């Protein structure tokens, strides 16, 4: 299992219970993923109880049913179909040094690598103190740290509400929450059905928590600039038109020391692509997501996937998908038969359907037009890693006719930096679409890389020097 968030934990629990030998690989120091962001190990001396899925996984680990490799990342992977355990995963410790290196082989893989915040550029977004909403919450829950004294939470999506509520409860002065979508659009599409009553109730509770603390919520508004000397000291908030373009004359500034901005979530498909899984733009947001069937099987035999990786569905949907994926892997390994699979997944398939329906309905509330491009100035940095400006990307399209993401990458360096396009993919695709008049044909391109996280050359040399490794693998690594 790759990932110890809701989907990964559920998959591990089901597969272990079905009798599989299970290893869970997770980047973070403790399981839980982004949703059940638990306090970092060693930080909390009180006898705090972790959330139930985390406690359940810990129990399986303690009982020897699951091997948990925390603080570990897969930096590259491959498939060798001629051997019994075809999936080859190269691990490294997260610290960047040479610790934690290992190569493991698996007969089946369940991918639950989740999603990261979608970020969109605006002038000054690279200033220290401007963070993603997910980052603000990770710091709050994982480290017990407020991101600042006075914050604005903004962007778009239901996720802004719990982040703002949690920050306010933690003593941060949340000056306001700005949502780019219009209120009427939100209300019109609100999934107000009896079936979704539990989620609606949660949403109502969040709104109440914010109202009680007098945190203003402004729809059809956005942070369109950040400014400050060495760190963010103020943000500019503008009203938007229906296309998210800024309305002239509506700018106002708010003094802050933190801005927490997010526009939903983007599936992390890098590892799936290396294992041969097909990806396609998922219907809600056009983000490349891993294709799965009703058994959560990907197009690569033996590889299953669940959770946000296959399309954002929220944590309950992720847990249901992960559980089904774990059971499907158990069937593939001959641990349980089809009858047992059908019986054990009956309730899970219903849960999955309910949560997918809610996610679809929720997504209909939030659209993402490209008027935010009008927030940018020529020198706004678009690719943070390589410091590529809006003007440079635009000119690559108009003057150099780089109308697909790969040519934009080759001519401007967007996506060549450490994050390998994770932060700038959406922005670059939108700039290309507007400047070229049509969407780039290779939208996953900035997301695909054979080396998923930076590793020292010595790590690649270890793989190349290993006499058991197939030659074509080391050759490919050496060429890169």
């Amino acid at each position: 299992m790759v990932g110890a968030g809701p989907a990964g934990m559920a998959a591990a629990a089901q597969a272990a219970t079905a009798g599989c030998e299970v290893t869970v690989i997770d980047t973070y120091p403790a399981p839980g993923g982004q949703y059940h962001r638990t306090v970092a190990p060693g930080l909390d001396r009180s006898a705090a109880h972790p959330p139930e899925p985390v406690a359940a996984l810990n129990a399986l680990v303690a009982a020897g049913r699951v091997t948990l490799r925390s603080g570990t990342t897969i930096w590259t992977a491959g498939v060798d179909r001629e051997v019994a355990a075809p999936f080859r995963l190269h691990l490294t410790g997260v610290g960047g040094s040479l610790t934690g290196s290992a190569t493991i082989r698996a007969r089946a893989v369940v991918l639950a690598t989740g999603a990261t915040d979608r970020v969109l550029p605006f002038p000054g977004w690279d200033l220290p103190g401007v963070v993603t909403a997910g980052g603000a919450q990770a710091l709050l829950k994982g480290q017990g740290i407020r991101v600042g004294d006075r914050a604005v939470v903004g962007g778009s999506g239901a996720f802004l509400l719990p982040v703002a509520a949690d920050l306010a409860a933690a003593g941060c002065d949340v000056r306001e929450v700005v949502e780019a979508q219009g209120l009427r659009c939100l209300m019109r599409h609100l999934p107000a059905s009896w079936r979704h009553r539990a989620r609606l109730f949660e949403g109502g509770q969040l709104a109440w928590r914010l109202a009680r603390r007098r945190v203003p919520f402004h729809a059809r508004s956005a942070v369109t600039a950040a400014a400050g000397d060495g760190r963010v000291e103020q943000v500019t908030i503008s009203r938007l038109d229906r296309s998210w373009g800024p309305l002239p004359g509506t700018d106002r500034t708010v003094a802050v020391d933190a801005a927490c901005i997010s526009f939903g979530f983007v599936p992390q498909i890098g590892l799936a692509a290396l294992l041969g899984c097909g990806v396609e733009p998922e219907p809600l947001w056009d983000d490349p997501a891993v294709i799965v069937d009703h058994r959560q099987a990907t197009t690569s035999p033996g590889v299953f996937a669940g959770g946000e990786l296959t399309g954002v569905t929220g944590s309950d949907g992720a847990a249901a998908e992960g559980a089904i994926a774990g059971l499907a892997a158990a069937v593939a390994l001959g641990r349980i038969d089809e009858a047992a699979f059908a019986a054990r997944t009956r309730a899970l398939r219903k849960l999955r359907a309910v949560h997918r329906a809610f996610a679809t309905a929720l997504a209909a509330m939030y659209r993402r037009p490209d008027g935010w491009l009008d927030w940018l100035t020529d020198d706004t940095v678009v690719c943070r890693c390589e410091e590529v400006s809006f003007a440079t990307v635009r000119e690559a399209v108009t003057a150099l006719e780089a109308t697909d993401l790969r040519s934009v990458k080759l001519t401007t360096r967007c996506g060549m930096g450490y994050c390998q396009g994770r932060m700038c993919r959406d922005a670059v695709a939108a700039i290309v679409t507007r400047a070229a008049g049509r969407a780039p044909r290779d939208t996953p391109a900035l997301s695909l890389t054979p080396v998923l996280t930076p590793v020292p050359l010595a790590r690649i040399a270890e793989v190349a020097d290993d006499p058991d490794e197939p030659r074509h693998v080391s050759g490919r690594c050496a060429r890169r």
Partner: protein
Amino acid sequence: MPPDQRLSPPAGPERGPVFTFLFADVQVHAHAGETIGAALLADGITALRSTRFAGRPRGLFCGIGSCFDCLVTVNGVPNLRACLTPAAPGDRVQPQDGRRVA
């Protein structure tokens, strides 16, 4: 008086004893289990490095290890993500000046 952005119990964790590490030549407070990035932020330090072309300040951004903006040098090892690297007593953490050739 520098800000302290740490949550106290019961809202926050019950932290162990405080220790210090060096960031450039500044003593920074930390507790076991805290990351370097979080400890710096708690003490009000947000700029961790400057970029290599324009020399602009950068700090924590995504907070989860995806963006690679929070890179610092720890005990001589460069380009570590401050948001994922635990702080240890006596660590020597250096901000990275991107324009300077190593």
